[in-house]
């Protein structure tokens, strides 16, 4: 189905990206290429810059130095309007299951269908109901986010992001704070996205179960760059003490964790 030529190169590429906030460097020299249809996990301690990294892909943050490429196009210098077409193709599920408080679930999902997909209100609302049905939220379609559990909100947020059928989906800690059953359902959903729809997924996560069950490759972020990159098996066999400490969840070791 996919164009052979297009799938040859990486769909997303960070080239030596640097980003600081108020003089405090977060990313120093981060390079990473993500292949089409891949499920790439980005792991690392809290505050290391995982969310910052992926927000660059959709123009929510701007690089200080380096380049970002999406599907053969350099995107790090686009302006807000220039990012519209990118945001149509790259969706993001935010960390806090960020739904719009003032809208029902249906209205939440309908918003990007109208604004990005160009649907009219009525069509968008109909389509939104279908999308909510896919994540088993039909009976809650007219409720407001505040009335729902975390797991439901997360599913609704995923439905909203997937409503416009993005080619690349960024998940920021999709299973954090969820019960194990809900978490594994979300894992399955991410895997199906890649396997059945050919989408690319970039998942920021601390969830070791998710990491070792659904990741194609894992990028370990440490001190502003990628410290290790490879398949789950490769990471498990890594001789790097820092990597070992993280994936075994040990409190003591060579890893430097600022603030502790």
């Amino acid at each position: 189905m996919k164009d052979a030529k297009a799938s040859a190169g990486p769909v997303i590429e960070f080239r030596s990206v640097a980003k600081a906030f108020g003089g405090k460097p977060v990313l120093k020299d981060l390079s990473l290429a993500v292949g089409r249809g891949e499920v790439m996990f980005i792991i690392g301690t809290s505050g290391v810059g995982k969310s910052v990294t992926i927000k660059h892909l959709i123009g929510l943050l701007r690089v200080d130095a380096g380049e970002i490429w999406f599907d053969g196009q350099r995107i790090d210098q686009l302006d807000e309007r220039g990012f519209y077409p990118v945001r149509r193709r790259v969706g993001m599920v935010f960390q806090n299951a960020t739904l719009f408080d003032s809208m029902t679930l249906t209205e939440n999902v309908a918003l990007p269908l109208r604004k990005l997909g160009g649907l009219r209100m009525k069509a968008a609302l109909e389509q939104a109901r279908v999308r909510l049905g896919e994540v088993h939220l039909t009976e809650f379609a007219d409720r407001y986010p505040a009335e729902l559990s975390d797991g439901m909100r997360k599913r609704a947020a995923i439905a909203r992001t997937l409503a416009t059928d993005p080619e690349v989906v960024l998940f920021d800690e999709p299973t954090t704070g969820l019960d194990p059953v809900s978490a594994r359902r979300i894992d399955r959903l991410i895997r199906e996205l890649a396997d059945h729809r050919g989408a690319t997924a970039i998942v920021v996560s601390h969830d070791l179960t998710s990491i070792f069950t659904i990741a194609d490759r894992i990028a370990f972020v440490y001190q502003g760059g990628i410290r290790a990159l490879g398949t789950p098996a490769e990471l498990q066999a890594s001789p790097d003490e820092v990597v070992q400490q993280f994936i075994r969840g040990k409190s003591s070791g060579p890893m430097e964790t600022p603030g502790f």
Partner: protein
Amino acid sequence: MSDRPGILASLTDRITRVGEGAIGTVRAAFDLVVLFLGTLGGLFRRAGRPRGAVVEQMHIIGNRSVVFVAVTLGFLGMVMVYQTCLQFNKVTGDFSQVGVQFIRLIVSDFAPTLTGMMLATRVGAGIAAEIGSMKVTEQIDALRMSGVLPVDYLIVPRFMASVVMTVALTVLGGAIMWLAGGLTAQYSFGVNPNIFYDLSLVTGVHVGLGLVKSLSYGMAIPVVAGFCGLRAKGSSEGVGWATTAAVIGASFSVIVLDFIWSILGFMIFGGSL
């Protein structure tokens, strides 16, 4: 001799920090102007705002402030007239000028500025808290990801509602102030209402000045408050900071605008004010 470089270093460090602070302030002022211009531009992008949002905001900003503004301006009118009459009583005992001067001042200054101050606190805090919590929970980012311009979607409806409602509440607040002042004069000092409620000194210039002030406060409050909300960082603590900054910033801009318009009015119309 040995700690010389240390002193020098700490001095340059301090200068750098002052410099950075100044640059930060200039930048913030620049960003605020950009937001204001963006909001004006957003007025012409009807598709950018949610349906019914302006009416909803008019209700939140206007209807819910009616009692607050009415009570405050009513009491202030009573106190001002009472104090004025008290002073006149000591000197001449002639109250004939109190009412006619009072309404002149209400129209050109008291009504718009006191209403503006009240709305700066109530509306400013409301807008900053709401937009600030949307910011820290990434709802603003999610809006951008949904193909929505946050300025058009959030600021513009509040801006439109605020302009309309500030003028409306100014008229209401001024009327109540006048009425409350008149009743105070009548019942505390026996001033004849026919003499108190005298509009003969109010000219088009006073009305125009009052209207310009009121319109400018109505524009400044949502933009300043929205600006503070959009800059909220971190978590709920950041929202608290943004809300405080919004109340201070919005009140301050009302005072500064009052000052500017009053000076301009005086320079242009001079004695006729």
